[in-house]
C-alpha cells in the first residue's frame, strides 16, 4: 500500500461524511433540486476525460473519439445539470411582484 492511495482513501472517507452531514439537513421540499444539483456535481468526471485526452500523446483515432464523446457527455451533465437546477430553484423564489398583488386581492 503506498501512501498516496492511503491519503486518497482518507479524503474519500472524509468526503463521504461531509456529504452525509450536508445533505441530511436538506428539507424534503428541496429534494428534486438537490438531486439535480448533485447530479451536476458528478459531471466532474469531465475532468477525468480532460486528463486522459490532454495527457495522452498519440492515442489513435478510436480513443480520441471515445474521449471526445466522454467530454460531450460530461459537459452536458455539468452545464445542463446546473442550468436545470437553477430553473427549478427559480420557481421556489416568490416573485416579489406576486406577493404585493396577492395582498391587494385579499384586502
Amino acid at each position, binding site marked *: 500500500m503506498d501512501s*498516496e*492511495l492511503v491519503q*486518497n*482513501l482518507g*479524503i474519500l472517507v472524509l*468526503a*463521504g461524511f*461531509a*456529504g452525509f452531514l*450536508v*445533505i441530511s*439537513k436538506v*428539507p*424534503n*421540499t*428541496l*429534494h*428534486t*433540486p*438537490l*438531486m*439535480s*444539483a*448533485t*447530479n*451536476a*456535481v*458528478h*459531471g*466532474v*468526471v*469531465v*475532468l*477525468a*476525460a*480532460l*486528463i486522459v*485526452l*490532454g*495527457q495522452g*500523446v498519440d*492515442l489513435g483515432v478510436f480513443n*480520441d473519439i*471515445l*474521449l471526445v464523446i466522454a*467530454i*460531450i*457527455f*460530461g459537459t*452536458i*451533465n455539468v*452545464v*445542463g*445539470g*446546473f*442550468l436545470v437546477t437553477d430553473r427549478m430553484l427559480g*420557481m*421556489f*423564489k416568490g416573485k416579489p411582484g406576486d406577493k404585493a398583488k396577492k395582498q391587494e386581492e*385579499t384586502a
Partner: protein
Amino acid sequence: MSWIQDPAFINILYIISFSLFIYGLMKLTGPKTAVQGNWIAAAGMGVAVVATLLIRGMSNWWLIALGVVVGTVISIPAAYKVKMTAMPQMVALFNGLGGGAIALISWAQFRDTGGFAEEELSKVIASLFAALVGSISFWGSNVAFGKLQEILPGKPVGLGRLQQPVNLLTFVAAVVCAVAIASGQTSEWWMIGLLIASAILGLMVVLPIGGADMPVVISLLNALTGLSAAAKGIALDNTALIVAGMIVGASGSILTSLMAKAMNRSIPAIVAGGFGGGGTSGGGDTGGEDRHVNSTSAADAAIQMAYAGNVVVVPGYGLAVAQAQHLVKEMAELLGEKGITVSYAIHPVAGRMPGHMNVLLAEADVPYEALKEMDEINSQFGQTDVSLVIGANDVTNPAAETNPDSPIYGMPILKVNQSQSVIVLKRSMSPGFAGIENELYYDPKTAMLFGDAKSSVADIVEELKQL
C-alpha cells in the same frame, strides 16, 4: 509563469473547487439561499476545469474544445426547454450521461495503457470499478429515462423467476472480466466484455422496476454515478474527483434510503424488482364490482369546498401528467378569497422523483409555507373538512395501515381517510402503478370525480367563480 502549472498550485485550486462544492450544497438547505448555492457549486466546477487544463503537458486542445462546445450547445436548449413535469427524466438522462462518460474514459484509458499493463493494482481496481458502475448507471438511467418519457412501458418488464439468476450471472460475468484484467490480461475483449456485461446488468435491473419505484431508482443511480466518479478520482489521483464524486455518492445514498423508507421498502427488494405488477390486488377485485362508489360532479365538489373551513390538497403523479398545477393554484386562490385555508399534503414519494410535487407547485407559485410534509399534515387530517386528492393513489391507501395482506402494508401514508370528507379526482377506477385497489375509494365519505385531472379542476374553478 511556471508556478501556475506547479502541481501544488493545481491541487490548491482543487481544494478551492471542492470547498465551493460543499459550501454550495450547504446553501441548498433553504429555498432562499439555494439559487446562490447552485451557482457556487457551478463556480467550483469552473475552477476545477480550469485547474485541470493548467496541468503541465496538456495537448489535444482542439478535441477538448470540440467536446466542450458540442456538449454546451446540446445542453443549453435541453435545459431551458424541458417542462417541469419532465424533470425526473431529464435528471435521469443527465445522470446516465455522467455514468456513460466514466465508462468511456475507462475504456479509452485501457486502450491507452495497453490494458493497464504498467498501472498500480489499486488504480486498476478503481478504474475497473468505475467502468463497471458507470456502465450500469448509463444503461440503467437510459431505461429510467425511457420509462418516464413513456418510450418504454412503465409497467415492469422482466423475466419473472429467471430474473434473479440472470442478473446474478451477468454480475458474475462482469466481475470475472474485471478480475481477469486486474490479474494481468491485456486483451481488449475483457474490457469490452466487462462493459457489455455491466450494460446488460443495468438494463436487467431497471427494466423490471415499476414506475412507482422510480424516485428510489433515480437517486440510487445518481449515487452510483457519484461513487464511480470517486473511484475514477482514486485511479487518476485527482482530489476534486474524489471529493465531488464521494459527496454525490453519500448524498445519493441518503436520499435513496429516505425514499425507500417512505415507501416502507428495502432497497434490495426494489432492485430485485417485481413490486409494480407481480403482486396483484390480493383478491380485492372479486368483491370490487359489488362495492358502492360515490361519484360526484364538479359543481357539487365546488360547493362542498366552498362551504368548508379548510381544504387539504393531496397531489400525486396524476397532477403532473395532467399539468394541472396552475389550475390547482387558481382554485386555491378562489377558495382563499372565500376565507378557506388551503394547504398541500406532500408525500415524500409522490410523483416520480423525491420532491417532484414541490417543484411543480412551486412552478405554479404556490407559497412554500402552504406545502406540508407528511408528518406535519397527518396530525391535522382529523380537523380537515375536505381533502382533495388529485391523481394520488397508493400514498393515500388506508390498506397500508389496516390490511396486513396488502403489498404496501406498513408504508407510511397520508391519512386522508381521517378527514371529514374526501374528493378524489381520478381518470377511472383502475388501480395505480402498484396495481393495488384503494380502500379509500369505497369509503362512504369519499366522492369520486371522474375525468382528466386538468379538466376536472378547470370545471371546479368555473363553478367556484359562479358561487
